[in-house]
């Protein structure tokens, strides 16, 4: 059985596209596997729960009880991919806690594969946070998200050293369109007959990137 992936979508900055990425990835995994568990750890940002209420539950890392509720679920090797939309308020506490409780070591022992999707930004807080993640996570499990809408082609060199997943910017009117709570990426792919539209291609490109990311994470076979 392949390791159970746990995707941790994070940034110490607000409004960089974490929830958008969490939506995209959750819908991709739901389409591919038929099942996914998503966790919304946001206090003030747009909520994943509002977009995907059927597969999302809220969680927090404010107190120990919340941490237990979340982490005791994440550490289970049940073949169901997990997606965490980690709000910027919870960034420091979450990674401090995972480091303290030895999450990576236990995950490796149990066949769970944590993958950090770090949404890059050009500010100092992001620049300081990235090396901390590099210290905690192996290079293979730390992916930089180059969201064109945020970094505008100026991805910091330090964050470009490892694996980078690029998300191209959408025109404003399409951005507004996909920001509607009722919008579903997979439904759009299924229902839009014209596959040449910009949004169609954008969704397909991102789904393909996720597929490639998944493949790159699989243990190499001899």
């Amino acid at each position: 059985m392949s390791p159970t992936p746990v995707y941790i979508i994070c940034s110490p900055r607000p409004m960089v596209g974490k929830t958008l990425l969490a939506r995209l990835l959750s819908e991709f995994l739901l389409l591919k596997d038929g099942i996914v568990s998503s966790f919304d750890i946001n206090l003030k940002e747009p909520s994943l729960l509002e977009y995907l209420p059927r597969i999302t539950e809220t969680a927090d890392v404010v107190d120990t009880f919340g941490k237990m509720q979340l982490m005791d679920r994440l550490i289970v090797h049940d073949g169901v991919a997990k997606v965490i939309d980690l709000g910027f308020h919870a960034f420091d506490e979450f990674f401090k806690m995972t480091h303290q409780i030895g999450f990576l070591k236990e995950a490796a022992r149990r066949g769970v594969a944590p993958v950090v999707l770090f949404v890059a930004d050009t500010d100092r807080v992001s620049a300081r946070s990235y090396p901390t993640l590099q210290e905690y996570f192996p290079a293979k499990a730390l992916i930089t998200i180059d969201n064109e809408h945020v970094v505008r082609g100026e991805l910091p060199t330090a964050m470009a050293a490892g694996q980078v997943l690029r998300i191209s910017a959408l025109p404003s009117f399409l951005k507004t369109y996909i920001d509607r709570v009722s919008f579903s990426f997979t439904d759009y792919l299924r229902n839009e007959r014209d596959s040449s539209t910009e949004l169609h291609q954008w969704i397909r490109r991102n789904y393909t990137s996720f597929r490639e990311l998944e493949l790159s994470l699989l243990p190499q076979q001899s």
Partner: protein
Amino acid sequence: MAKPVVIVVGADKGGVGKTTVSRTLLDYFSANNVPTRAFDTESPRGTLKRFHPDITEIVDMTTTSDQMKIFDTLNAASPSVTVIDVRAGLLSPALASLRDIGFLDAAKAGQITFSVFHILGPSIASLDEIAETANFMQGAKYYLVKNFINDTQFFQWDQATYNSYFHRIKDATELTIPKLNEMAYEQVEVSSVPFLKFVANKGKDDEAANYSFVLRGYVRHWLANVWSEFDRIKLTDLVGAGKPVSRGGEK
């Protein structure tokens, strides 16, 4: 034959974490394969015995018969280390008793290795115990244990006060026990197992348990930090057990 080692853990104040420190000591020696026995002076019902029933005996240190049970068996007992968890308020009287029966003289003469872990509370009264206890400490290793398990402070914010207590005794060694997450602490309490078994997700009889991974992680992290303090003071050297067992990646 190795010298017998006696470690007294005590304080004159209650609720400062004497038994918690005793438990970490027993776990530390167990992990380092040092045969150990323990005496719990919380007669008739001991907390330490609840966590380490196999190696702990409840005694009443104020009675001669129980004093004999502890000290007359030091040379005969196969475990080389004896840990005594002294009940609150009994540290000074216990040390006085040890002096009276000639035990402290034997320690001074090098026949016995004797250590006192004095667990400190956050009050001036607790700090005043240091001077009182220090009178008995000739020939003994004296450890002043600052237990942060209750978010306690030790007057670090008032350097003059701090120095007047902590630097008063020349040969005392300071030891810091960090704070353990409250929920993790409570869960171990409820489970009534040694910290080591909790970390290993085992019940009283080594059966598989189902403790929270998060709480086990907190306990593992905390225990590693406590043990690194014991490594720092070379506790295994004190008991003649050589280098501590490697615990890579835990700290």
